[in-house]
Protein backbone atom coordinates (compact mmCIF):
# COMPACT_ATOMS: atom_id res chain seq x y z
CA UNK A 1 0.00 0.00 0.00
CA UNK A 2 2.88 2.37 0.87
CA UNK A 3 4.58 1.63 -2.48
CA UNK A 4 1.37 2.40 -4.35
CA UNK A 5 0.91 5.59 -2.40
CA UNK A 6 4.50 6.68 -3.25
CA UNK A 7 3.88 6.04 -6.94
CA UNK A 8 0.75 8.17 -6.77
CA UNK A 9 2.65 11.00 -5.10
CA UNK A 10 5.39 10.69 -7.75
CA UNK A 11 2.77 11.04 -10.50
CA UNK A 12 1.35 14.13 -8.84
CA UNK A 13 4.85 15.68 -8.61
CA UNK A 14 5.38 14.79 -12.31
CA UNK A 15 2.18 16.60 -13.29
CA UNK A 16 3.24 19.73 -11.41
CA UNK A 17 6.67 19.63 -13.05
CA UNK A 18 5.06 19.10 -16.46
CA UNK A 19 2.84 22.16 -16.02
CA UNK A 20 5.98 24.23 -15.28
CA UNK A 21 7.75 22.79 -18.36
CA UNK A 22 4.67 23.54 -20.49
CA UNK A 23 4.79 27.17 -19.33
CA UNK A 24 8.55 27.33 -20.05
CA UNK A 25 7.83 25.90 -23.51
CA UNK A 26 5.19 28.54 -24.23
CA UNK A 27 7.44 31.34 -22.98
CA UNK A 28 10.35 30.06 -25.10
CA UNK A 29 8.09 29.72 -28.19
CA UNK A 30 6.78 33.30 -27.73
CA UNK A 31 10.33 34.60 -27.36
CA UNK A 32 11.32 32.70 -30.52
CA UNK A 33 8.41 34.23 -32.49
CA UNK A 34 9.34 37.74 -31.31
CA UNK A 35 12.99 37.17 -32.43
CA UNK A 36 11.77 35.83 -35.80
CA UNK A 37 9.40 38.79 -36.33
CA UNK A 38 12.24 41.22 -35.55
CA UNK A 39 14.45 39.34 -38.05
CA UNK A 40 11.67 39.46 -40.74
CA UNK A 41 11.31 43.25 -40.10
CA UNK A 42 15.02 43.68 -40.72
CA UNK A 43 14.70 41.54 -43.86
CA UNK A 44 11.80 43.72 -45.10
CA UNK A 45 13.81 46.80 -44.52
CA UNK A 46 16.69 45.09 -46.39
CA UNK A 47 19.18 45.32 -43.56
CA UNK A 48 21.69 42.36 -43.44
CA UNK A 49 19.47 40.07 -45.50
CA UNK A 50 21.72 37.00 -45.17
CA UNK A 51 22.00 37.27 -41.36
CA UNK A 52 18.27 37.90 -41.01
CA UNK A 53 17.32 34.91 -43.14
CA UNK A 54 19.71 32.80 -41.09
CA UNK A 55 18.08 34.05 -37.86
CA UNK A 56 14.55 33.20 -39.13
CA UNK A 57 15.68 29.67 -40.03
CA UNK A 58 17.41 29.27 -36.64
CA UNK A 59 14.22 30.31 -34.77
CA UNK A 60 12.14 27.84 -36.80
CA UNK A 61 14.57 25.06 -35.87
CA UNK A 62 14.55 26.13 -32.21
CA UNK A 63 10.74 25.98 -32.07
CA UNK A 64 10.82 22.63 -33.84
CA UNK A 65 13.15 21.31 -31.12
CA UNK A 66 11.07 22.84 -28.30
CA UNK A 67 7.87 21.27 -29.74
CA UNK A 68 9.34 17.80 -30.08
CA UNK A 69 10.76 18.14 -26.56
CA UNK A 70 7.39 19.13 -25.05
CA UNK A 71 5.61 16.38 -27.03
CA UNK A 72 7.98 13.81 -25.53
CA UNK A 73 7.43 15.25 -22.04
CA UNK A 74 3.64 15.21 -22.57
CA UNK A 75 3.76 11.52 -23.49
CA UNK A 76 5.97 10.73 -20.45
CA UNK A 77 3.71 12.67 -18.12
CA UNK A 78 0.56 11.00 -19.49
CA UNK A 79 2.20 7.64 -18.89
CA UNK A 80 3.20 8.65 -15.37
CA UNK A 81 -0.31 9.94 -14.58
CA UNK A 82 -1.89 6.72 -15.83
CA UNK A 83 0.48 4.65 -13.72
CA UNK A 84 -0.19 6.87 -10.70
CA UNK A 85 -3.95 6.63 -11.17
CA UNK A 86 -3.84 2.84 -11.39
CA UNK A 87 -1.49 2.64 -8.43
CA UNK A 88 -3.74 4.94 -6.40
CA UNK A 89 -6.85 2.92 -7.16
CA UNK A 90 -5.10 -0.38 -6.48
CA UNK A 91 -3.68 0.94 -3.21
CA UNK A 92 -7.06 2.28 -2.12
CA UNK A 93 -8.70 -1.04 -2.97
CA UNK A 94 -6.06 -2.94 -0.96
CA UNK A 95 -6.38 -0.50 1.94
CA UNK A 96 -10.17 -0.79 2.09
CA UNK A 97 -10.24 -4.56 1.78
CA UNK A 98 -7.67 -4.70 4.60
CA UNK A 99 -9.76 -2.33 6.71
CA UNK A 100 -12.92 -4.28 6.08
CA UNK A 101 -11.19 -7.56 6.86
CA UNK A 102 -9.81 -6.22 10.13
CA UNK A 103 -13.23 -4.86 11.18
CA UNK A 104 -15.19 -7.83 9.99
CA UNK A 105 -14.01 -10.44 12.47
CA UNK A 106 -14.50 -8.32 15.60
CA UNK A 107 -17.89 -7.18 14.31
CA UNK A 108 -18.97 -10.73 13.57
CA UNK A 109 -17.88 -11.74 17.05
CA UNK A 110 -19.86 -8.83 18.49
CA UNK A 111 -22.98 -9.89 16.59
CA UNK A 112 -22.65 -13.47 17.86
CA UNK A 113 -21.98 -12.28 21.42
CA UNK A 114 -25.03 -9.97 21.27
CA UNK A 115 -27.18 -12.91 20.22
CA UNK A 116 -25.85 -15.02 23.09
CA UNK A 117 -26.41 -12.17 25.52
CA UNK A 118 -29.96 -11.66 24.27
CA UNK A 119 -30.54 -15.39 24.76
CA UNK A 120 -29.68 -14.92 28.43
CA UNK A 121 -26.02 -15.98 28.58
CA UNK A 122 -24.82 -13.13 30.78
CA UNK A 123 -21.29 -14.57 31.04
CA UNK A 124 -20.73 -13.61 27.39
CA UNK A 125 -17.72 -11.38 26.73
CA UNK A 126 -15.82 -10.52 23.53
CA UNK A 127 -12.07 -10.34 22.93
CA UNK A 128 -11.07 -6.70 22.81
CA UNK A 129 -8.71 -5.92 19.94
CA UNK A 130 -8.27 -4.80 16.33
CA UNK A 131 -8.74 -1.20 15.25
CA UNK A 132 -9.27 1.29 18.04
CA UNK A 133 -12.90 1.70 17.00
CA UNK A 134 -13.73 -1.99 17.18
CA UNK A 135 -11.72 -2.27 20.39
CA UNK A 136 -13.78 0.55 21.93
CA UNK A 137 -16.95 -1.14 20.75
CA UNK A 138 -15.76 -4.43 22.23
CA UNK A 139 -14.97 -3.01 25.66
CA UNK A 140 -18.25 -1.08 25.66
CA UNK A 141 -20.03 -4.35 24.94
CA UNK A 142 -18.17 -6.10 27.77
CA UNK A 143 -19.03 -3.30 30.19
CA UNK A 144 -22.67 -3.54 29.20
CA UNK A 145 -22.68 -7.32 29.67
CA UNK A 146 -21.01 -7.00 33.08
CA UNK A 147 -23.55 -4.39 34.15
CA UNK A 148 -26.43 -6.60 33.00
CA UNK A 149 -24.96 -9.49 34.93
CA UNK A 150 -24.53 -7.38 38.06
CA UNK A 151 -28.14 -6.17 37.91
CA UNK A 152 -29.47 -9.65 37.28
CA UNK A 153 -27.54 -10.86 40.34
CA UNK A 154 -28.98 -8.05 42.43
CA UNK A 155 -32.46 -8.82 41.22
CA UNK A 156 -32.07 -12.52 42.08
CA UNK A 157 -30.80 -11.64 45.52
CA UNK A 158 -33.74 -9.29 46.11
CA UNK A 159 -36.10 -12.06 45.02
CA UNK A 160 -34.49 -14.48 47.46
CA UNK A 161 -34.68 -11.96 50.30
CA UNK A 162 -38.32 -11.25 49.53
CA UNK A 163 -39.19 -14.95 49.58
CA UNK A 164 -37.26 -15.49 52.77
CA UNK A 165 -39.07 -12.57 54.31
CA UNK A 166 -42.49 -13.91 53.32
CA UNK A 167 -41.62 -17.32 54.74
CA UNK A 168 -40.43 -15.82 58.01
CA UNK A 169 -43.46 -13.55 58.26
CA UNK A 170 -45.81 -16.41 57.57
CA UNK A 171 -44.08 -18.53 60.19
CA UNK A 172 -44.02 -15.84 62.86
CA UNK A 173 -47.70 -14.98 62.36
CA UNK A 174 -48.71 -18.58 62.81
CA UNK A 175 -47.78 -18.85 66.51
CA UNK A 176 -50.01 -16.03 67.83
CA UNK A 177 -52.70 -17.22 65.47
CA UNK A 178 -52.48 -20.69 67.00
CA UNK A 179 -53.10 -19.18 70.42
CA UNK A 180 -56.04 -17.04 69.28
CA UNK A 181 -57.72 -19.92 67.51
CA UNK A 182 -56.93 -22.41 70.30
CA UNK A 183 -58.33 -20.26 73.08
CA UNK A 184 -61.39 -19.31 71.04
CA UNK A 185 -62.00 -23.05 70.57
CA UNK A 186 -61.66 -23.50 74.34
CA UNK A 187 -64.46 -21.00 74.82
CA UNK A 188 -66.59 -22.86 72.30
CA UNK A 189 -66.03 -26.08 74.27
CA UNK A 190 -67.45 -24.29 77.33
CA UNK A 191 -70.32 -22.80 75.42
CA UNK A 192 -72.86 -23.61 78.11
CA UNK A 193 -71.15 -21.03 80.36
CA UNK A 194 -71.49 -18.30 77.72
CA UNK A 195 -74.43 -16.06 76.91
CA UNK A 196 -75.84 -16.36 73.36
CA UNK A 197 -74.13 -13.05 72.44
CA UNK A 198 -70.78 -14.29 73.77
CA UNK A 199 -71.13 -17.54 71.83
CA UNK A 200 -71.76 -15.55 68.70
CA UNK A 201 -68.75 -13.35 69.40
CA UNK A 202 -66.48 -16.38 69.76
CA UNK A 203 -67.76 -17.76 66.46
CA UNK A 204 -66.86 -14.46 64.78
CA UNK A 205 -63.36 -14.71 66.23
CA UNK A 206 -63.01 -18.28 64.96
CA UNK A 207 -64.33 -17.45 61.47
CA UNK A 208 -61.84 -14.64 61.12
CA UNK A 209 -59.00 -16.72 62.48
CA UNK A 210 -59.65 -19.41 59.86
CA UNK A 211 -59.79 -16.72 57.19
CA UNK A 212 -56.43 -15.41 58.36
CA UNK A 213 -54.97 -18.93 58.20
CA UNK A 214 -56.15 -19.29 54.58
CA UNK A 215 -54.55 -15.96 53.71
CA UNK A 216 -51.28 -17.08 55.28
CA UNK A 217 -51.37 -20.34 53.35
CA UNK A 218 -51.94 -18.45 50.11
CA UNK A 219 -49.04 -16.14 50.90
CA UNK A 220 -46.83 -19.12 51.57
CA UNK A 221 -47.87 -20.83 48.32
CA UNK A 222 -47.02 -17.65 46.45
CA UNK A 223 -43.56 -17.51 47.97
CA UNK A 224 -43.01 -21.22 47.28
CA UNK A 225 -44.05 -20.94 43.65
CA UNK A 226 -41.55 -18.09 43.20
CA UNK A 227 -38.71 -19.58 45.09
CA UNK A 228 -38.66 -23.34 45.14
CA UNK A 229 -38.70 -22.80 48.81
CA UNK A 230 -35.59 -21.39 49.94
CA UNK A 231 -34.30 -22.56 53.29
CA UNK A 232 -35.91 -21.09 56.31
CA UNK A 233 -34.05 -18.87 58.79
CA UNK A 234 -36.61 -19.33 61.45
CA UNK A 235 -37.16 -18.71 65.10
CA UNK A 236 -35.62 -15.28 65.42
CA UNK A 237 -38.55 -13.08 64.56
CA UNK A 238 -39.33 -10.58 61.85
CA UNK A 239 -36.91 -7.97 63.16
CA UNK A 240 -33.91 -10.08 62.32
CA UNK A 241 -35.34 -11.02 58.90
CA UNK A 242 -35.79 -7.34 58.08
CA UNK A 243 -32.32 -6.46 59.37
CA UNK A 244 -30.86 -9.32 57.33
CA UNK A 245 -32.58 -8.09 54.18
CA UNK A 246 -31.35 -4.52 54.71
CA UNK A 247 -27.78 -5.55 55.50
CA UNK A 248 -27.63 -7.88 52.49
CA UNK A 249 -28.96 -5.09 50.27
CA UNK A 250 -25.81 -3.21 51.26
CA UNK A 251 -23.72 -6.23 50.39
CA UNK A 252 -23.01 -7.03 54.03
CA UNK A 253 -23.61 -9.91 56.40
CA UNK A 254 -25.31 -10.21 59.77
CA UNK A 255 -24.79 -12.79 62.48
CA UNK A 256 -26.61 -13.23 65.75
CA UNK A 257 -25.85 -15.24 68.84
CA UNK A 258 -27.92 -15.38 71.96
CA UNK A 259 -27.57 -16.77 75.49
CA UNK A 260 -30.64 -16.98 77.74
CA UNK A 261 -30.37 -14.50 80.59
CA UNK A 262 -27.19 -13.04 79.14
CA UNK A 263 -28.50 -11.18 76.11
CA UNK A 264 -27.79 -11.29 72.38
CA UNK A 265 -24.88 -10.29 70.18
CA UNK A 266 -25.47 -9.06 66.63
CA UNK A 267 -22.55 -8.73 64.23
CA UNK A 268 -23.13 -6.60 61.15
CA UNK A 269 -20.44 -6.42 58.47
CA UNK A 270 -20.80 -3.78 55.77
CA UNK A 271 -18.47 -3.21 52.82
CA UNK A 272 -17.11 0.33 52.53
CA UNK A 273 -16.79 1.95 49.11
CA UNK A 274 -13.09 2.40 48.25
CA UNK A 275 -12.13 5.90 49.43
CA UNK A 276 -10.46 8.41 47.07
CA UNK A 277 -6.73 7.55 47.03
CA UNK A 278 -5.45 8.24 50.55
CA UNK A 279 -2.05 9.77 51.26
CA UNK A 280 -0.76 6.47 52.55
CA UNK A 281 -0.96 3.70 49.98
CA UNK A 282 -1.94 0.18 50.96
CA UNK A 283 -4.69 1.10 53.43
CA UNK A 284 -7.58 -0.03 51.27
CA UNK A 285 -9.69 -1.73 53.91
CA UNK A 286 -13.03 -2.67 52.35
CA UNK A 287 -14.68 -4.08 55.43
CA UNK A 288 -15.62 -2.59 58.74
CA UNK A 289 -16.70 -4.25 61.91
CA UNK A 290 -19.47 -2.46 63.77
Amino acid at each position, binding site marked *: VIAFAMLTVLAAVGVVRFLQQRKDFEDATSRSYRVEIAARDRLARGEGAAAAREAVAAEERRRQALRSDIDRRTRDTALLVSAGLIAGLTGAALLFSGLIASMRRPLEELVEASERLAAGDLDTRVKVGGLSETATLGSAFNEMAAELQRRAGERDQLERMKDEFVLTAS*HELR*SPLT*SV*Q*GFAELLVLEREKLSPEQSETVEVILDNTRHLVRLLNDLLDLARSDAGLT*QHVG*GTGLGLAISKSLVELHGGTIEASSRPGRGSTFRVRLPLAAAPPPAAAGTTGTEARL
Partner: protein
Amino acid sequence: VSTRVLIADDSETILLLLRTRLEMEGFEVVTAADGVEAVEAARGGGDGDGPDVLLLDAMMPRKSGIDALRELRAAGVDTPALIVSAHQDELDAGLSPDLDIGGFVPKPIDFERLFARIAELTGG
Protein backbone atom coordinates in the same frame (compact mmCIF):
# COMPACT_ATOMS: atom_id res chain seq x y z
CA VAL B 1 -53.65 -44.88 84.23
CA SER B 2 -53.83 -41.83 82.02
CA THR B 3 -51.45 -41.21 79.16
CA ARG B 4 -48.63 -38.81 80.04
CA VAL B 5 -47.70 -36.24 77.39
CA LEU B 6 -44.55 -34.11 77.40
CA ILE B 7 -45.14 -30.79 75.68
CA ALA B 8 -42.20 -28.56 74.76
CA ASP B 9 -42.70 -25.05 73.42
CA ASP B 10 -40.94 -21.72 74.03
CA SER B 11 -44.27 -19.88 74.08
CA GLU B 12 -45.97 -19.87 77.48
CA THR B 13 -49.27 -19.14 75.79
CA ILE B 14 -49.01 -22.18 73.56
CA LEU B 15 -47.96 -24.29 76.56
CA LEU B 16 -51.04 -23.09 78.47
CA LEU B 17 -53.29 -23.84 75.51
CA LEU B 18 -51.84 -27.32 74.99
CA ARG B 19 -51.93 -28.16 78.70
CA THR B 20 -55.55 -26.98 79.07
CA ARG B 21 -56.81 -28.91 76.04
CA LEU B 22 -54.85 -32.07 76.82
CA GLU B 23 -55.89 -32.09 80.48
CA MET B 24 -59.52 -31.52 79.49
CA GLU B 25 -59.14 -34.60 77.30
CA GLY B 26 -57.87 -36.59 80.29
CA PHE B 27 -54.14 -36.60 79.58
CA GLU B 28 -51.47 -36.02 82.18
CA VAL B 29 -49.17 -33.18 81.07
CA VAL B 30 -45.50 -32.38 81.64
CA THR B 31 -44.10 -29.14 80.17
CA ALA B 32 -40.70 -28.03 78.92
CA ALA B 33 -39.72 -24.53 77.76
CA ASP B 34 -37.11 -25.63 75.21
CA GLY B 35 -35.24 -28.60 73.76
CA VAL B 36 -32.79 -28.89 76.62
CA GLU B 37 -35.57 -29.16 79.20
CA ALA B 38 -37.43 -31.54 76.92
CA VAL B 39 -34.46 -33.93 76.74
CA GLU B 40 -34.14 -33.90 80.57
CA ALA B 41 -37.85 -34.53 81.08
CA ALA B 42 -38.02 -37.28 78.45
CA ARG B 43 -34.96 -39.11 79.82
CA GLY B 44 -36.25 -38.89 83.38
CA GLY B 45 -38.49 -41.80 82.53
CA GLY B 46 -37.66 -45.43 82.14
CA ASP B 47 -39.01 -46.34 85.57
CA GLY B 48 -42.57 -45.58 84.58
CA ASP B 49 -42.40 -41.84 85.38
CA GLY B 50 -41.38 -40.83 81.85
CA PRO B 51 -43.82 -39.45 79.29
CA ASP B 52 -45.69 -41.78 76.93
CA VAL B 53 -45.73 -39.28 74.07
CA LEU B 54 -43.52 -36.31 73.16
CA LEU B 55 -45.05 -33.20 71.56
CA LEU B 56 -42.11 -31.04 70.52
CA ASP B 57 -42.16 -27.63 68.86
CA ALA B 58 -39.82 -27.58 65.88
CA MET B 59 -38.35 -24.14 66.58
CA MET B 60 -37.13 -23.44 70.08
CA PRO B 61 -34.17 -21.53 71.50
CA ARG B 62 -31.14 -23.39 72.89
CA LYS B 63 -32.23 -26.64 71.28
CA SER B 64 -34.84 -27.28 68.60
CA GLY B 65 -37.41 -30.04 68.86
CA ILE B 66 -35.63 -31.92 66.07
CA ASP B 67 -32.24 -31.70 67.81
CA ALA B 68 -33.80 -32.76 71.10
CA LEU B 69 -35.39 -35.77 69.44
CA ARG B 70 -32.14 -36.66 67.68
CA GLU B 71 -30.34 -36.63 71.03
CA LEU B 72 -33.03 -38.76 72.67
CA ARG B 73 -32.99 -41.33 69.84
CA ALA B 74 -29.19 -41.51 70.06
CA ALA B 75 -29.57 -42.21 73.79
CA GLY B 76 -31.97 -45.05 73.05
CA VAL B 77 -35.18 -43.28 74.04
CA ASP B 78 -37.90 -44.59 71.69
CA THR B 79 -40.90 -42.69 73.07
CA PRO B 80 -43.32 -41.83 70.21
CA ALA B 81 -42.84 -38.21 69.17
CA LEU B 82 -44.88 -35.60 67.32
CA ILE B 83 -43.33 -32.45 65.92
CA VAL B 84 -45.29 -29.18 66.00
CA SER B 85 -44.32 -26.84 63.19
CA ALA B 86 -45.61 -23.76 61.43
CA HIS B 87 -45.20 -25.61 58.17
CA GLN B 88 -43.76 -29.02 57.67
CA ASP B 89 -41.58 -28.26 54.67
CA GLU B 90 -39.40 -25.91 56.73
CA LEU B 91 -38.19 -29.04 58.49
CA ASP B 92 -37.53 -31.22 55.51
CA ALA B 93 -33.82 -30.50 55.55
CA GLY B 94 -32.09 -32.40 58.30
CA LEU B 95 -34.79 -34.98 58.85
CA SER B 96 -33.77 -38.61 58.72
CA PRO B 97 -35.87 -41.79 59.09
CA ASP B 98 -34.03 -42.86 62.24
CA LEU B 99 -35.64 -39.92 64.07
CA ASP B 100 -38.79 -42.07 63.92
CA ILE B 101 -41.16 -39.11 63.93
CA GLY B 102 -44.73 -40.15 64.64
CA GLY B 103 -46.21 -37.23 62.74
CA PHE B 104 -46.30 -33.49 62.19
CA VAL B 105 -48.76 -31.18 63.88
CA PRO B 106 -49.18 -28.02 61.81
CA LYS B 107 -50.06 -24.68 63.35
CA PRO B 108 -52.79 -23.69 64.01
CA ILE B 109 -53.37 -26.98 65.83
CA ASP B 110 -56.31 -29.23 64.93
CA PHE B 111 -56.87 -30.72 68.39
CA GLU B 112 -59.27 -33.45 67.36
CA ARG B 113 -56.69 -34.84 64.94
CA LEU B 114 -53.96 -34.42 67.57
CA PHE B 115 -55.91 -36.45 70.15
CA ALA B 116 -56.62 -39.17 67.61
CA ARG B 117 -52.95 -39.37 66.64
CA ILE B 118 -51.82 -39.59 70.28
CA ALA B 119 -54.29 -42.39 70.85
CA GLU B 120 -52.89 -44.28 67.84
CA LEU B 121 -49.30 -43.84 69.00
CA THR B 122 -50.01 -45.03 72.54
CA GLY B 123 -52.19 -47.91 71.40
CA GLY B 124 -55.14 -46.44 73.27
